[in-house]
C-alpha cells in the first residue's frame, strides 16, 4: 500500500476512476443477474462460465483496489455502521486487536481488510451470543479456525474423511 496521502487533485482523480470501476462492477453484476433470471428454465451454469464471470468481476474489483491504493482507512463511525455495533465497541475491538488501525491516520481509521475479516467472522458467531460476549466468542472462533486450518490438522481430517485409520 502507498504510504503518503495523495494530494487533493490526485485524490479526486483516483476517486473518479474508482467510481467508474465501481459502476462497471454494478453494471456487470446487474447483467449477470438478468441473464441468470432469463435462463431460469435451464439454470445450470457450467463451471467454466461461472469462472469467466467471477474472473471478470475480480478483475474490476482488483482495479478498484489498485486505484484506491492510499493509506486511507474507514472512519470509526462508518466501521461501526458496517458491523452494526456502536463506535465505542469498534474502539474496544481495535484495542483488543480484533481490528487494525490504518497507520498514521488521525482521527483513527480502520484497515479495510481487517474490517471485512471481522465482519465475516462476526456473521458466523453473532447469532449465538449476546453482544457482551462477542469479543470472547470472536476470539474463540478465530482461535479454532486457526487451529483447524493448520496443515497437520487438515491433513488428518482429510484422512479421517477417507476412512484411513490405524488401530491402537
Amino acid at each position, binding site marked *: 500500500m502507498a504510504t503518503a496521502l495523495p494530494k487533493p487533485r490526485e485524490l479526486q482523480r483516483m476517486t473518479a476512476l474508482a467510481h467508474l470501476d465501481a459502476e462497471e462492477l454494478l453494471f456487470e453484476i446487474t447483467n449477470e443477474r438478468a441473464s441468470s433470471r432469463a435462463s431460469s428454465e435451464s439454470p445450470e451454469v457450467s463451471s467454466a462460465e461461472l469462472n469467466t464471470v467471477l474472473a471478470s468481476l475480480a478483475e474490476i474489483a482488483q482495479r478498484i483496489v489498485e486505484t484506491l491504493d492510499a493509506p486511507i482507512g474507514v472512519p470509526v463511525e462508518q466501521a461501526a455502521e458496517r458491523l452494526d455495533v456502536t463506535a465505542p465497541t469498534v474502539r474496544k475491538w481495535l484495542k483488543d486487536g480484533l481490528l487494525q488501525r490504518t497507520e498514521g491516520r488521525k482521527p483513527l481509521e480502520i484497515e479495510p481488510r481487517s474490517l471485512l475479516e471481522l465482519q465475516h467472522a462476526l456473521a458466523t458467531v453473532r447469532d449465538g451470543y449476546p453482544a457482551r460476549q462477542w469479543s470472547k466468542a470472536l476470539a474463540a472462533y478465530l482461535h479454532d479456525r486457526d487451529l483447524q486450518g493448520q496443515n*497437520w490438522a487438515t491433513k488428518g481430517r482429510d484422512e479421517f474423511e477417507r476412512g484411513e485409520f490405524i488401530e491402537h
Partner: protein
Amino acid sequence: MHRLRLTPSADKAVRGLRGKPAAAWIRVEADLKAQGCRAAGYRLLGSDGNWSPYCCKHLYGRWRVITTFEPGIATVTAVGEHDGPGFYTQLSHELGISDVGRGREQKPDCCGPDGWPTTGDIAGQHISDHASLGSVRSQR
C-alpha cells in the same frame, strides 16, 4: 472402554514425539480409551460458528490432539503443534490469548450434555443449544 484409532498422519506424529509430549501422549491415549470424550478436552467451533464435530486436547506446550467420536470409538484425527500465524498471532498478542490457546477462556466440554460425541448425533445442534462458551472449565 473405547476403541482407539488414529489417522496415519496422527499415528506418525505420535510416534515422532519425544520427552514430555511423548509422556503426555501415553496418558492421553490411556484416558481416551478409558473415558472417551471426557478425556478429549474442549469442543471446537466449526467454520460456520456452530459446534464442530472435533475436540481439542492440550498435550504439552504447543502440542494439540484433535479428536472426534462415534459410539464406542475414539478417533484421533490429528496431532501437531499449533503455530499462530497472521491475524491470530496479532490477536493473541493483543488479547493475551496465547497462540497455543493457553488463554482461550471458554473451553466447553468435548462431551455434550447428552453425552455427545461419545453417543448421539450433532446434526442440527447449535451453539446456543448447549452451555455457552462462557462455561469455563479447565481442560489441561
